């Protein structure tokens, strides 16, 4: 329902936040009458677009690196950056599966595959690699890792049974029926998983500021938590 005087705010957001962000944006729209348009994509793509002058008012990244890059490129409104969300990294297995000890992973895998996001490029993959390194498992499992261009694709490999195990975000694993979460990595094993949010240096930042502060409100944050996200930097 577009009211007179209604304005539009455009958000460029990491694709993995879609379910949650869509719900929350809808609620805000109903409350305020303003319109939220959200363009979901990979963080790298979004950052580059923001840098190239995309009509984005807000940028929600799944990676601090790309938020850094956007900031360094002068695309963000100074001081508007804020770590909005966090997430947990888990090991999933195909079908109904008992919990495992991550340390047993190499034995459980044998010659089969461990699905992960690209370990040098996709945030979930990067965090996963850090965690496995911290556990001293990386050199054992590295040859077995099947990397995908996004976490959902990794999850799909497990869901289809192609790979018996995968490392994904908790938010992705939660509602899938064909996979079960068999282990949760300790937050300490990897750099904190954060989804930084910032207002983009694009004409009319006022509404963006308004939506940003809405997102940061305690109510909304708890809604995010209900949907599987954790608080940012909940880790030390």
């Amino acid at each position, binding site marked *: 329902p577009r009211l007179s005087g209604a304005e539009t705010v*455009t958000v*460029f957001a990491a*694709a*993995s936040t*879609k*379910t949650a962000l869509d719900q929350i944006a809808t609620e805000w729209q109903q409350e305020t009458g303003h319109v939220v*348009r*959200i*363009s*979901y*994509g990979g963080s790298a*793509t*979004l950052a*580059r*677009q923001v840098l*190239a*002058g*995309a*009509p*984005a008012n807000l940028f929600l990244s799944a990676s601090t690196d790309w938020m850094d890059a956007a900031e360094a490129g002068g695309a963000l409104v100074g001081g508007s950056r804020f770590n909005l969300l966090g997430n947990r990294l888990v090991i999933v297995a195909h079908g109904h599966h008992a919990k495992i000890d991550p340390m047993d992973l190499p034995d459980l895998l044998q010659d089969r595959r461990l699905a992960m996001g690209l370990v040098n490029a996709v945030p979930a993959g990067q965090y996963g690699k850090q965690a496995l390194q911290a556990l001293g498992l990386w050199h054992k499992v590295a040859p077995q890792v099947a990397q995908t261009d*996004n976490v*959902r694709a990794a999850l799909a490999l497990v869901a289809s049974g192609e790979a018996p195990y995968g490392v994904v975000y908790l*938010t*992705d*694993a*939660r*509602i*899938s029926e064909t996979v079960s979460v068999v282990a949760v990595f300790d937050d300490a094993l990897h750099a904190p998983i954060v989804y930084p949010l910032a207002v983009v240096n694009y004409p009319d930042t006022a509404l963006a500021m308004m939506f940003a502060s809405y997102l940061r409100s305690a109510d909304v944050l708890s809604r995010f938590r209900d949907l599987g996200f954790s608080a940012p930097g909940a880790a030390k």
Partner: protein
Amino acid sequence: MNWLGPEELDAVLLSLRVSFWATVCSLPVGLAVAFLLARGRFPGRQLLNSLVHLPLILPPVVTGYLLLMTFGRNGPVGRFLEDAFGFVFAFRWTGAVLAASVMAFPLMVRAMRLSIEAVDPKLEEAAATLGASRVWIFLTVTLPLIAPGIVAGTILAFAKAMGEFGATITFVANIPGATQTLPSAVYAFLQVPGGEAQATRLVVIAIVISLAALLTSELLARRVQQRISGT
């Protein structure tokens, strides 16, 4: 279509619009390039040929980035177009048209070129002896004879445009109602838990639309063929 949300409907309509314009706009250019490649003997012909094939060789994301770098607000061509004509590709549906056109271009050109190369030059000679200038020969002899190639190129381009994703999302992002095409919407659904059902629905719509176009083109091509071969 009450089982389609307004956003999804937007995506379907946008994809249709983008594919239509991508096909229509690249038709004359594709035809000209196909003609140059099939018949021209000029320096730089192989360069042009390579350029045309580039979007096929490159991962779509790369093509998307190159488009962003070139036709974006800050890109050389993009800035020129905006300054001179106020025309913007980046993050507009027109940009999606451009991305789809570029991606479909090699397919279209190749189909047309094959047809042009199959035209018997003796018929064109005959037209010349009857007083037809080059342009008229092209319009009255070559063009009708390559109709099968044009139909094939058109349908290939349309289908490709309906399915194009990587370059489009990279170049114009995925803004609902503005640049979110069907494949972009499918992508977004696939990125979240439980989105498969919605993605599937959209995929089915894409398939139905494209296959309808395909069947129409087949009918058209058959009729053209019949006209040429007799009766």
